[in-house]
């Protein structure tokens, strides 16, 4: 446990998104915390995985002024490199991002104290109040920065804000339990039931996740399960039917679907990554695929709905 008084505690925040509508009821502000114990192949926020600050570079914004180079204490900026940053040398100190006039260099991950973050999310209080909205903690995996998450949720509750969390479920059960009093809603990702497949595609074992899922239902926590619908990886007959069986066993009949979007792929290059994802991840989920997943769930007796709304009507 952190020795600092709570308000001095800091967390590493990836992004704060206001007027967020898909992460719980009403108008919300979603705070994305950086760092995740999983590394799903389809992860749409690759910059959220590492628990350390990083530096991003968007070449199309660069005007070639070399301010960054002058600012860099580690001599890590190379103009003749395809990726501008020598990631081996870079200490992610952020000096280049601060100086870059065009924001071609940008800090990925910023430290916030509890009080600063609370002040930030309270700005939209009028909108939460009118819409029944509030604050959602997301990630990465917010429980990875457990002390910060707990302290922040407490602070939100003291400020009278509605709270929600989006979790992948890979956390110590005790920790999850400690968060419950400060949460109005939990969005819990169920990805893959088969443990071998889970290990293969997310890099982690799923026993703890499934146990937590069961535990939350048993203690009547306000939990909603969600499935990231990824072509072939999660959206296959076997997986869907196993999820269906699992849900029925714990006594749940509903699941939210998060359709896969491919537009994260460009973000890889911002982080200096050269790898490109497999072909099936380079295109978006089609509405037919989404419908067929809904269909498969309904054959299992599970009511599945897209969290982004159904297929566009207009």
């Amino acid at each position, binding site marked *: 446990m952190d020795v600092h008084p709570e308000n001095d505690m800091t967390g590493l925040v990836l992004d704060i998104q206001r007027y967020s509508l898909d992460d719980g009821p009403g108008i919300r502000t979603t705070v994305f915390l950086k760092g995740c114990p999983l590394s799903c192949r389809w992860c749409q926020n690759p910059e959220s995985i590492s628990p350390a600050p990083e530096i991003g570079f968007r070449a199309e914004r660069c005007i070639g002024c070399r301010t960054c180079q002058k600012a860099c204490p580690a001599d890590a900026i190379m103009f003749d490199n395809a990726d501008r940053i020598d990631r081996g040398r870079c200490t992610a100190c952020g000096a280049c991002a601060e100086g870059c006039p065009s924001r071609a260099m940008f800090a990925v991950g910023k430290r916030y104290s509890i009080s600063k973050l609370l002040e930030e999310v309270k700005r939209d209080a009028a909108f939460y109040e009118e819409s029944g909205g509030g604050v959602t903690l997301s990630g990465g995996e917010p429980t990875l920065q457990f002390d910060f998450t707990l302290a922040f949720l407490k602070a939100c509750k003291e400020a009278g804000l509605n709270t929600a969390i989006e979790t992948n479920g890979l956390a110590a059960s005790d920790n999850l339990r400690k968060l419950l009093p400060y949460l109005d809603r939990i969005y819990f990702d169920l990805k893959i039931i088969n443990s071998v497949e889970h290990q293969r595609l997310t890099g982690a074992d799923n026993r703890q996740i499934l146990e937590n899922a069961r535990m939350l239902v048993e203690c009547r926590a306000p939990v909603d399960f969600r499935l990231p619908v990824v072509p072939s990886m999660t959206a296959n007959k076997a997986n869907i039917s196993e999820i269906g069986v699992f849900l029925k066993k714990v006594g749940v009949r509903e699941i939210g679907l998060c359709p896969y979007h491919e537009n994260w792929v460009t973000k890889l290059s911002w982080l200096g990554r050269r790898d490109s994802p497999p072909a099936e991840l380079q295109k978006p989920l089609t509405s037919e695929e989404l419908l067929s997943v809904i269909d498969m769930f309904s054959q299992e007796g599970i009511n599945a709905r897209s969290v982004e709304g159904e297929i566009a*009507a207009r």
Partner: protein
Amino acid sequence: MTTITKQRRALSQRLQHMRRRVIDAPRELGIVRVREVTNAIRNNRDLPRIIQFALGVRETLKKLPIDISDSELIVGKSTEKFKGSALYPELKSDGLIKELDNFNERTSMQFKLTDEEKRELREDILPFWDGTSGFDKWAKQLDKDTDFLVRNLAIIPFNDFQGSTGLSYVDYRKVLENGYEGIIGEAQARLAGVSNGGPEAEDKRAFYKAVIIAAEGVIELAKRHSRLASEMARTAPSEERAKELREIAEICAQVPAKPARTFREAVQSFWFTFCGLQQMDMPMELPGARIDQYLYPFYRRDVKEGRLSREDAQEFIDELFVRFNQVVFLGEYVITRVVDGNSTRFDLTLGGVDRDGKDATNELSYVFLDAADAVRLLHPSVTIRLHPDTPESFFQAVGEVMTNGSNVVQVFNDNVIVESFTRVGVPVEDARDYVLTGCIQPLSGNMYGPSCSVFFNGPKILEMFLNGGKPILSLAGDDADMPSPEYESWEDFYAAFKDYYRSVLERAFSQYRLVGDIQRRDLPNPVLSPLVPGSLERGKDVKAGGALNNASGIALVGNGTLIDSLAAIRDVVYTKKSHTLDEVVGWLKTDFEYNEEERQALRNHAPKFGTCDSRADEIAKDLVDFTDELLLSQPKTSRGGAHVLSMHTEAHHIYQGSMVAASADGRHAGEAMSPGCGPTSGMDKEGPTASMQSVCAMDFTKMAGGSSYNQRYSPKMFDTEQGVQAFISLLKAYFFKLGGQHLQISTVDTETLRDAQKNPAKYEDLLVRVTGYSARFVELTEATQEEIIARSEICGC
């Protein structure tokens, strides 16, 4: 979460046909009005101007060729052309004379006229107005310093010669309930009561006589339609149409001469009145006022007595909507730029509170809203008044129309507007009875007051301040390279800027007084005056201060650009002290030619209005407070009213921006400035809630002249019911928790707009909100299209 699958209501066959016809018809010039008015003056040299005008109007309405087309149920046009503009050279004639040969050919907003008409205008009519129009008289007495500011577009104080004088509260109820015969009767009685002697009594007598003559004209127009309908009924192609024509004949025999007896008569009476009002003052911004209110008693009675169903009423109102599109206005070239894509602003105001402060939303409010959504043409412009007790079902209906991509309505906050009027001395009952006019200008009940009489260009004023009082960029050749001022601190700098800003505005006010004097003397309006309460009672034209309430507005252009520029100077020069003021001004003088790095830093690192950044927001607030004090300290206008502040720009922010040098917010010379009262397009990067909070740092109760605040949303935000509900909550919080005044949104994504630029034919029906008005996207100039595309697309991703 349900997905919206609601279908847009289809128009009846008859109306689909009428709608198509009005879209396809070319704009034409009607010249009967200008011929008759000019002749009336020439032939009656000794009569007072107001009587000359009235005679001209009466002759026009007697002689205007009329017709009743195929399936029309509402009849009457304001010109002899199907989709026609009258001409008003008495206001401003120089552009007409110079550009007469171009109207057919120019690339945007063409108008057809025949060679014969052109010849008559060139040889006979326009020479009479050469050098004698109101504008000419004003321009002749312009002093040197003001001329300097005007030709460099720092101030535009002569908008009252270009159509803004139609901004008036109009009491249509008076015609519906008493008929024009009632008005004539009242004028006769008052005429008889004018006591002998004195110039004032003479003026009054002339005024009443003119009112009577003009009213006779409107009656005559209707009677002629009645006779025509009777004739046509005899040879009608079917018995059904013959019956309709006989009904039309009967209705036009009754109204607007006599009180309307039914809903349909009330609608027709309104329309003739509206056509009559078109004969004076180039009233391109004339409101239809609170039409759901004054038509409601007729609607309710007819429905109760079984004469009318809601569907029948809808059909009439749909037709009325289409008919508005037949009234168009010729503008000279500059006007086509500043009102890009659409010069007409006929506003219908729906909902809101009544004079006692109670909710006044009624069934017709829904009927009119539905017509706007189903007809989807540029006119009329529909404004919804909202207040905390607006019925939830109306909120839902409004939210649905705002988000469905029709882009045809805007909303105003009653709480804020009512207070803005009581603050400047308007009785609260009148304040509650406000109507929308022009793009976004509210006018209280019983108020006459062009609220966009004077435009002033904030960023240009800053440019001149930074360059020793001279422009850096000037099409008039006034540009000069002057030393920039030096100040110890931000406080000193800002105080000096405000002094300069004050001196420019004071000059604008004094000029506006001259405009008002010319309006009073040379440009009275005997058609409008009797419909503005106070005028008949006092025997005074509206231009002479006859209305019970008066105001006049000055409109700030480039608010967001001005704030961002000031905030950037404070940040760089006085807070971080990374550069001197002289350096910054140097960049502006060269349009950042050697300073792209600095420009990028200004754009990306300086505080921006619209992101909830107090360093920008407090300047926004302070400038409004300061301007408000300045306005309150001014002498009254020549009509005896207050000057009120407005922040709406039409397309001025683009046109005027094209003549403003680079600005300290990182904007290049000539680029568009910020629209309306809002942030610079694309700079509100924190989403709609942040943008709204920034905007609401300004005290909108100090903006009785109105404001326009624009947002653009991706249609996919509204694919779900949840998205629409979130928007409605957003709107409620913005209005009733933060004190926002106005909102209009365009629901269209960037991809669609880009595609429309490439394939205009595919998108001829695509409407967008510019600032306070809708326009067909494909008819906008490229600069305006780009400004709309640059607006941050709110897409939740």
